[in-house]
Structure formats: structure tokens, C-alpha cells
């Protein structure tokens, strides 16, 4: 047999490559990524056209708060759900088919298998997320310019950070979905929970007790998404802190996922 230099790094590399082969060999991966761009840019086209048409009716104060970059990143709202599907399927498709047994028999170091999956999800999601956010930005500014409404350039203050932040935000949501999937081990359970976290809880936040307000400063779609604004939001004076808090929450969930993944029978 071949002998294998078994440094932990080489071992991780093998597992990671195997996970990539698994991901790229499923059509659903590519359909999901295509869906991400189609839905993202469609939302961009609709929302930018309506924003541009509404500009004429804005008051002077409202025009001061006009945030062309932030507006063009609004498709993140739908994109986070689709990229969450990607982060989910990497885990739950294996539980649904029973393939997880085969994977763990081939890679019994469970933390290595899950780390490889998480790194893969983060990598794919950050590339896809950044690509979508930049595409959406340029497309959105072109729509605004076509309507003769003030638009932003990538070099304008805060714009690059907001667009790049949008891609990072999407990657963090994909990892959130991966963590939920490991804990819940079912596609339906993970996606329902993800929808509750990113849509339902923010929508209902006003009805929650006041002590939960602090939590929403770091919540997805709420404070966590503040990095995508280029006009200062008085609620979130340091948006990267809010985003950092959200990332810590995701990291905590992943830590729980690692512990459960190691301990549970398959």
C-alpha cells in the first residue's frame, strides 16, 4: 500500500479535498449557487428601480441619509437564506442518506471531518457571497446612474468596507446554518430554525421583552447586518463591533456543534 506522511496538516488537507469533491459532485450545489445569483440580482433590479423612482419624492433630510451603496446590498436579505441552504446541505444531506456513517468510517477523527466541512462552507460562501455583493453593488449603481439619481463609487468613503462586509456577513450566515445542521441533523429542522433566526425574530423583535434588545444589536438581519450601511446609523455607531458580536455567536454555536458531533452516536 502507499504510505502516507501523516502530519495533522496533511490529514486535514485530505479530508478537505474529499469534502470538496463531495460538494462539487452534486448538481444541487451548482443549482443553489445559480439560484443565489439569479435571486440576488433580481431583488437588486426590483429594489434599485423602486428606490431610484422614489428619490424624487424624498425630503432634504432624507436625501442627506441617501445610501446608494447600502441600498444596492439589500439583496443580502434573500441571499442569506440561499447561502444558508448551502451551509445546511453539506451536513444534512449526509444524515438524510446515511452517508454520514460512511464518511465517519473513512474519517473517524470527527473533529477533523467537521472542521473540513466548516472550512469548505466558509470558503465557498465567502467567494460566492463577495461575488454576489460586488455584482449587486455595481449593478445597483448602474441602475441608479441610469435614472440620474446619485450613486456611489467603490472608492467613496466606507463603500468598499460595506460591500466586502456584505460578503463576510453571508459567509457567517452559511456557517450559522452549518452549526444548526449539526445540532439538529435534519434539513427541515435546520432551515426552519434559520428562517426563524434571520427573518422571524427580527420581524417580531419589537414584541420581545426589553432585555432582549441588547441581543438584537448582534443579531443577523439586525445589528449584525449594519456593516452594509455607509451612512452612519445612530443605533449602531460601530457596526463592525456588532458584526463581530454576531460572529462570536456563530462561533459559540459551532463550538456546541463540535462537542455534539464528537459525542453522539451516528
Amino acid at each position, binding site marked *: 500500500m502507499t504510505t*502516507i506522511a501523516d502530519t495533522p496538516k*496533511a490529514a486535514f488537507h*485530505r479530508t478537505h479535498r*474529499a469534502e470538496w469533491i463531495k460538494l462539487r*459532485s*452534486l448538481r444541487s450545489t451548482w443549482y443553489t449557487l445559480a439560484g443565489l445569483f439569479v435571486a440576488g440580482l433580481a431583488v437588486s433590479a426590483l429594489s434599485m428601480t423602486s428606490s431610484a423612482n422614489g428619490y424624487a419624492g424624498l425630503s432634504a433630510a432624507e436625501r442627506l441619509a441617501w445610501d446608494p451603496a447600502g441600498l444596492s446590498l439589500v439583496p443580502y436579505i434573500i441571499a442569506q437564506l440561499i447561502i444558508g441552504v448551502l451551509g445546511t446541505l453539506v451536513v444534512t444531506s449526509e444524515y438524510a442518506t446515511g452517508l454520514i*456513517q460512511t464518511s465517519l*468510517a473513512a474519517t*473517524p477523527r470527527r473533529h477533523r471531518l467537521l472542521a473540513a466541512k466548516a472550512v469548505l462552507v466558509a470558503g465557498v460562501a465567502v467567494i460566492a457571497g463577495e461575488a454576489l455583493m460586488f455584482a449587486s453593488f455595481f449593478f445597483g449603481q448602474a441602475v441608479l446612474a441610469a435614472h440620474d439619481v446619485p450613486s456611489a463609487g467603490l472608492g467613496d468613503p466606507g463603500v468598499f468596507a460595506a460591500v466586502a462586509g456584505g460578503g463576510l456577513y453571508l459567509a457567517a450566515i452559511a456557517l450559522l446554518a452549518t452549526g444548526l445542521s449539526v445540532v439538529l441533523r435534519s434539513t427541515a429542522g435546520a432551515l426552519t430554525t434559520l428562517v426563524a433566526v434571520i427573518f422571524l425574530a427580527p420581524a417580531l423583535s419589537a414584541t420581545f421583552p426589553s432585555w432582549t434588545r441588547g441581543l438584537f444589536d448582534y443579531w443577523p438581519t439586525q445589528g449584525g447586518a449594519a456593516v452594509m450601511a455607509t451612512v452612519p446609523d445612530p443605533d449602531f455607531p460601530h457596526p463592525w463591533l456588532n458584526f463581530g458580536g454576531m460572529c462570536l455567536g456563530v462561533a459559540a454555536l459551532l463550538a456546541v456543534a463540535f462537542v455534539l458531533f464528537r*459525542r453522539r452516536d451516528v
Partner: protein
Amino acid sequence: MLLDMIEIRGLTKRYGHQTVVDDLSFTVEPGHVTGFLGPNGAGKSTTMKMILGLAAPTSGSVTVGGRRYSGLPVPLTEVGALLDAGAVHGSRKAYDHLLALAVSNGLPKRRVGEVLARTGLEGVAGKRTCGFSLGMRQRLGIAATLLGDPRVLIFDEPVNGLDPEGIRWIRDFMRSLAREGRAVLVSSHLMSEMALTADHLVVIGKGRLIADTGMTAFMRSRGEGTVLVRAAEPAVFSRHLTAAGATVRDGLEASIVVSGMASAEIGKLAAYHGVALAELTPQQPSLEDAFMDLTEDSVEFQGAGA
């Protein structure tokens, strides 16, 4: 040689209050097909999962080549296991499924082609597995177990649902793996199937070990058979047999069933008395009966013990 063994010592698994595997000890040795038998729910799959580190034992130990499975650096080169042939992603191509497994263990790509050839799947390597028949899926699962050319192989009910040709293929395959000096553990609830495949038997019931024996020893121990005899004048020949010390009862359609005398002796007796025999057929008690007897005992024993 001993490095290729599976050793199970005092293995116990409890789910809540239910003891699914109960203080089980046995070894699986190289060069043999070890049949792992037990009725539904006996704990066969659970035991196999514990061998593979997929389920954690409540107590006891299981090692492969003296090491715990989870400590094997490149497990596919030491153990190949097929627990569930349906455990593939239907929209992945057979080749990609195997390639991912090979890569995960640092095995060269050419191994994928080799195992596809050995299992006769070259023609469908580029097909998505959702279109595979049960037999093809079993072959794909077996191909996966062979990727790392392991010394130990584990199959959970590999012939379930297969047609006679598929069953025969798997049976011959297990035998050839054992001939190559590998240790093969294969579970089943069909005694008759194991009689054709295995040379060693481990029988469990309700998680407890019932028998751990060579196949020939098991066959011998399940009691003497009977001989079915057809003679021109059965009543007369029966008297001769009884006089010679055999026990005789009437069988179907004017046949007689003889016990306590081997067929060769019966033949000689017939020749001596000048009786023409139309049929002389040794009959073994059915393997399934022997198996049922064994496992029934265990159930009763369990009931009395509880």
C-alpha cells in the same frame, strides 16, 4: 497475522434501559468468513457500529489489529465496511462517490478504477446512483470497502433483497476475500445462507452470545439426520430395519423415515435381504430449525433470568 483480527471483549451497549448488546466477546480471524447471526433486533448492526466507532460502547472494548478504530490513521487501508448499501447520495455519480472516499484516505485515484472493475461496475461509473438497482448499490458499497485493500472486511446483511444471482455473486466474493487471507465478518439472519458462505459462526440473541463455533462443528452438533427410504414392500423392510436396531416411522406416499441408522447401513441391509430400493435419501434437520432452536433458548433464558 493476529494484527488483522477484530477482538471484542465484554462489549455492552445500552440505549436507555434497553441493553442492546450484552457483555459480548468474540474474535474475527483472518482467512475466514465469520457469519454473524441473530434474529431481528439481536444487536448485530449495533455491534458493527461499535467496531467502527460510530456508536460508543457503554462498556467493554473492541479493537481492530489491537487498536481502537478511531485511532486508525488511514482506516480504509485496514478495515472496509458496508453497513447500508442505500447510504449513498443518489445524485452523485458512482465514480465521484468512490473518489471522495479514496481522497479522504490519501489513496491513489487509480484505486477507484480498480475497485469498479473488481465489482463489475466500470460501465456505470459515470452514472448517478439514484438509478442503480439494489444489486448495483450493493456492488458499489462493496467497491468502497475494497478501496484501501484492507485486511478486515465487515458487511451488514449484504444479501438482503438480492436475487439468486446477486446472492451467489456476493457469496463467492466473500469466500474469495477470505481465501486472500482477509478477515471477513458478515451478518445475516439466514442460517441457510451462512451455511454456504461462512466457516465460522457467531450467533447472538438479545445482544448475548449464544454460540461461537466452527461451521462444521455446528453442522455436526445439530443432531443426526434421518433417511428417507422407498422400498417395494415398505412394511416388510420396516420390520427388517427395526430388527437391526433402527427407528422407523411412516413418511409421505408410502415412504418410510429411518433414524438411528446411516444410509450406507440401510443400503447394505436392503441388499442382504434382497429388497429393491426406489429411493434412499439422507435428510438433515433444517438449518433454520437448528438456528431457531438456538435463539429460542436464548429468549427463554433471558425471560427466566429477568
